[in-house]
């Protein structure tokens, strides 16, 4: 479903990605791990067609993200690191806008919004302005906009960052409930996140993949932290560009 091959990307003098390769099969939930500045966001942005790579290829459902971006866009739901929300819209208005933007046909738009509101637990706040929502709710709206067109592939960039433990648990449960058959690629630098939600982990460091294996092989939930620290040992600030920069 997702195949990333030898991806390169530089910003000015900084090499953000230096040959990233990994793959995710249909129905897999893959954790994309790495310290801040490792190249996670850049990789996800390339997969989501927001950025074009300088070298290598990223394909989603068999379509190259750089050459056939429209085909890729039809098939992905993308939650960027900073949830893209219009604060002057209500939750309902915003999700209807997203459905139209994603070409959900008018007759099924209302139902699509209803479903995603129910699934993300937004029923109580759907008529409130997004500006007045808590961070946890905003993150749920961010997830809802990525789901409203029922995509085959979900790309989530740090879906739980900045949330309190209760909210984190809710979002995790939500991600886990997103159902089978959907491929999920989820980036994070929080290890338990991967342990709880993913079946596989790809660890990236300084623009390179340093580990790519099942959770068990990486030492299970408890050994994961050790694996992470071992693989990402050394200065993690060196490649700190391209991550989080809007």
């Amino acid at each position, binding site marked *: 479903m997702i195949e990333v091959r030898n991806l390169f990307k530089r910003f000015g003098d900084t090499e953000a990605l230096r040959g990233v390769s990994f793959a995710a099969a249909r129905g897999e939930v893959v954790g994309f791990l790495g310290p801040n500045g490792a190249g996670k966001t850049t990789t996800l942005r390339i997969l989501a067609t927001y950025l074009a790579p300088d070298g290598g290829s990223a394909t989603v459902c068999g379509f190259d993200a750089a050459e056939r971006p*429209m085909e890729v*866009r039809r098939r992905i739901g*993308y939650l*960027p690191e900073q949830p893209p929300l219009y604060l*002057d819209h209500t939750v309902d208005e915003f999700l209807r806008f997203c459905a*139209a933007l*994603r070409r959900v046909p008018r007759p099924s738009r209302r139902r699509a919004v209803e479903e995603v509101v129910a699934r993300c637990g937004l029923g109580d706040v759907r008529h409130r302005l997004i500006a007045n929502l808590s961070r946890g709710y905003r993150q749920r709206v961010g997830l809802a906009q990525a789901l409203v067109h029922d995509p085959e592939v979900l790309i989530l960039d740090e879906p739980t960052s900045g949330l309190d433990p209760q909210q984190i648990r809710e979002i995790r449960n939500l991600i886990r409930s997103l159902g089978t058959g959907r491929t999920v690629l989820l980036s994070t630098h929080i290890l338990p996140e991967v342990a709880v939600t993913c079946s596989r982990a790809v660890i990236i460091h300084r623009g390179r993949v340093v580990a790519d294996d099942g959770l068990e092989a990486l030492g299970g939930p408890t050994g994961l932290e050790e694996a992470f620290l071992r693989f990402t040992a050394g200065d993690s600030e060196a490649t700190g560009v391209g991550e989080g920069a809007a």
Partner: protein
Amino acid sequence: MRPALAVALKEIRSQVASPVGWVVAASYLFLGGYFFFGLVDGFARTLRSYAALAPTLVERINLNEIVVTGLARNLLVLLLFVLPILTMRSFAEERRQGTDELLLTAPAGAGEIVLGKYLGLLAVATAWIAASGAFMLILLRYGDPETGPIWTAWLGLGLAAAAMVALGIAVSAATESQAVAGVGSFVLFLMLFVVDWPADSLGTRVGAALKAISLPGRFDGLSRGLVSSGDVAYFLSLAALGLFTARAIVASQRWR
């Protein structure tokens, strides 16, 4: 087309919900009213003094020329100030808020996003211009101006807005800062207003070229009731130039 329409409606909705939009609209109409009052008052005083001093010349004083054409020209200058405020947010703010990631990863393409922004903002600008038509209703109620030149003058305002909104969006697409976008479009529009000022000292060929791209020069005929295809084509070409530039800038951002 669906995504473009969605973006257009969102844009209108944001403007309607934003106090800034209303403040700008109110300022435009307030200043327009102030100019209108001054022009009508000037017309009336001219009429009185001619009637007293040279009754034979009263016929020559034309309500259309003084009030309609005069107001249209003043409103055009007001557009120079208010349209940058309307367009400066369009892409700069999306990028600063990170919402451009939503727009540009949707199955829509840069062209449709730009078109949506354009249609939405042009609808808002058109509403402002239409509202300033109220002054002409007052004039028709109490005077007897020719209606043809009123229509062409307001068509001219609409065409000028169509050009300036497109260019403003292109400037906004090139920056992340609303302030830079606002100042940038203002300077660009102002240049279109004053570009022909040195025309007379630059030789006939260059001078003629500068006059040909002067926005008020192209507006002049329309404000007096003359519709020429050249003038209409000028405004539409500027609009097309703005839209293509905006699309190119937005599309190129993937290749940063």
